[in-house]
């Protein structure tokens, strides 16, 4: 509990990640649940993007460079305009075990309200994969929160954006993408993952200029 003193907020964040990042269960679940969030690694990857808007912005920039989707730029602009890299940042330690512990606290809040059920697959004490069954109540609660607490709706929107970015990629693939960030990789074991807001902001600026120039060129081609 170094960086977040609020398990409820962590729980809300997790709730929206789980809801927005879930996919349909292939087979019916005894509890009647229809959605599943697969893999803790994927959850942590989502967590990382929510808690580090600068890394998300960088990812979106990559995406934009690949696809040229204008909506992505709007999202990035918004991230910086709202000073999210500062205000929404919840630093993470690269040592992932700590994160686990934290997730456990928040998850237990969700579990205690029976919003999520955690299923661990494996033999004996070796667990290969942890999946999260999203209870129908969780979807209701999520909807209600967006309606009743506008401040918290940011989590919903953000989780949805990340889900869109992540697509069907698994946690391992997402992590690999996150590791691409040099700064991320360079973070020493146990150190705080540094902000890349400044360089990303700079990248955005350059890219915007280039795109303007490109547009200008296109106009005259």
């Amino acid at each position, binding site marked *: 509990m170094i960086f977040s003193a609020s398990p*409820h907020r962590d*729980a*809300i964040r997790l709730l929206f990640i789980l809801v927005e990042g879930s996919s349909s269960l292939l087979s019916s679940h005894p509890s009647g649940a229809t959605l599943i969030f697969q893999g803790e690694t994927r959850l942590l990857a989502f967590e990382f993007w929510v808690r580090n808007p600068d890394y998300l912005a960088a990812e979106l920039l990559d995406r934009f460079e690949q696809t040229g989707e204008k909506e992505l730029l709007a999202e990035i602009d918004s991230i910086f305009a709202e000073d999210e890299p500062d205000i929404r940042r919840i630093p993470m330690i690269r040592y992932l075990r700590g994160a686990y512990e934290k997730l456990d606290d928040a998850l237990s*809040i969700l579990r*205690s309200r029976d919003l999520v059920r955690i299923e661990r697959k494996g033999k004996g004490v070796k667990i290969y994969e942890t999946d999260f069954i999203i209870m129908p109540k969780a979807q209701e609660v999520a909807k209600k*929160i967006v309606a009743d607490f506008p*401040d918290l709706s940011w989590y919903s929107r953000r989780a949805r954006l990340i889900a869109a970015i992540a697509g069907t990629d698994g946690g391992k693939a997402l992590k690999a993408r996150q590791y691409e960030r040099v700064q991320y990789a360079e973070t020493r074991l146990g150190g705080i993952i540094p902000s890349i807001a400044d360089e990303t902001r700079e990248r955005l600026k350059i890219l915007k200029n280039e795109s303007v120039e490109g547009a200008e060129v296109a106009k005259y081609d």
Partner: protein
Amino acid sequence: MIKKRSAMGWLDAVAKSAKVAPEAVDAVLTKHLIRPTPVVATPRHIVLRSIEFSGKKNEVDDAGPFSFEWKSLDTGIWAMLTEANLKGKSTIIELVRWLLRGRRADTLQDDVWKWINTASISFELDGTLHRIVVEKSQEDVKGNFVKSSADKDIEIASFESEGEFEAVMSSFFMKELSLHFITEWRGGASEDGGKAVVHEWPSFSGVMFIGSDYNSLLGDVVTAGLPVRLMQMYLGLPWVSTLSSAKAIQKGMKQDHDTFTRRHEQEVKERTLRVDEITKELDFAREKLELTPSDLELRRNLSLANNRYATAEQKARKLMQSRESAKKFYDDANMIYMEDRKELQTFLDEVQAGAVFRKLDPSFCPRCDNIITDERKKRELETHTCSVCGDSIASTEDAEERRKILEDRVAASKAGIKKTKKDIEKLCSDQDHALTDAKRLSQICEDIEGKLRNQFGQRRELEHDVTRLEARLEEASTVTAHESKKYVDDTVIRAIVKETERIVKDAQSRILGDVSDAITGYAKRFGMHNLSQATLKGNATLPLIKGGENTTYSKVTKGEQLRLKVATVLAMLKVAEKHGVGRHPGLLMIDSPGSQEIASEDLDALVSGLVEICNELPHLQVFVAGLATPAIAVRVPRDRTKYAAGDDSLW
């Protein structure tokens, strides 16, 4: 007796009068060629001994060769009488005149002149016989001048042109008769007009010949000053030449002075214009120089600009530092602002998240996944102990208060940022200004340095201009020393004239009384019985009292003028003989004009008077030419007469 005065005494007197050193007077005399002539002349006597001439008449009734001889002449009266006019009496006088002075007179008729082939006269000068023989061709004259002594002839000179002939005769008589040239200033009408005219023998010899022109009392040249000088000269006065020279120079000087004054006035005018012009130019140059800062001033300006530049630069640097620290402060403030906002956001999230989960009662234990029993839930409501862990769930925190605090903090840090931003903007603008100032001052410094380089030459040039113009102004303002030098000469000349005139007048006044008396006496004897008084004045005028009335020489009849003219010469001769001082040689040739101008009675009276006077003045030799009247014929002895009867000619 005329008191003789030495040249030395005269020089001292002049120097004293002019208040200069005698040497200065000497210098002026030398410069202006004024010679002291203190010598009193002793009378010398010329007596014509013979008159001869020959030639050939053309285009007249009695054309053909002719020859005239008149020998054995002596003192006393001689007459050339014709019964008709134009019978050669004037020619005889004119030829004698020509031979004596070496220059032909205008009155000698051209046709007669052409006829003459040879001419000669002989005369005695104080007993020594001289002979002039001239051969005349159409082109020129040649001949010689011989002095006879004891038993042989000595040639004084020979001549081969009219000019030489004149020079010979002039130098001979000027020397022999102790004559000195007379300088006369002849003024003209023109601005620079006027010039000195030197009279020598041709003019002096005029006193021996009385022609038909009576305008002048003495001599035959009518000019303003000459009769006075001739009178003085023939009275034998000393210093006459000196006086005439000095007076001519004085007049010339006056002329020069007038011209000089005119020129000087013109010069002053021009100089004033020039001075004005130069002054204007100088003022302009000085102003320009004044406007061109001196190097010193420029250096001072440069130093000032350098200081100001340094100050501005320092200020800019300080501002930059301030801006840097402000930026750092801004960054810090921004970080705080962000943190405050983050804290607020976290708080809001937490509060709301808390609210969300408080409404969601736990139904499972997150640890064991067992269902929370109704009993536990009931107990939680009653005891406010968690149905899961058993801890107290009562909220001790006042959320609203906390929110207010956090929001205030955000607002405060936001204001801090805003202010810092403003500060930075101001610092930026100040720094920009300071940099602009520094740049401007640096430019000024460069400009001044450039000016210093350029101006060194420019200012030097201007200074040079001013100096040059000042020198020109001084030169233009200076009056030449020429004037004062002129003044010294002027003073000395004036003193010379004054002193000399005093001497001459002194000597003259004592003589003029005697001369006047003699004139009056002779004129009466020439038949002017009603003349009671003739007074010869120093200015050679002759006021008369005739019949009790005041009149003058110029107002009386021609006949009277002739007699007065003759009387004056004779009077001078008489007084000269009496005092032993004088220059008239005692020869007088009178040509009387035609009967229509001079009454024959007048001539009779004149001749009869002359006959008598000749006896009284033993050295006098008088030739009278005139129309023959019985009276004259009776008065002059036949052997002393050349007579042409009827239409006959004298030669």
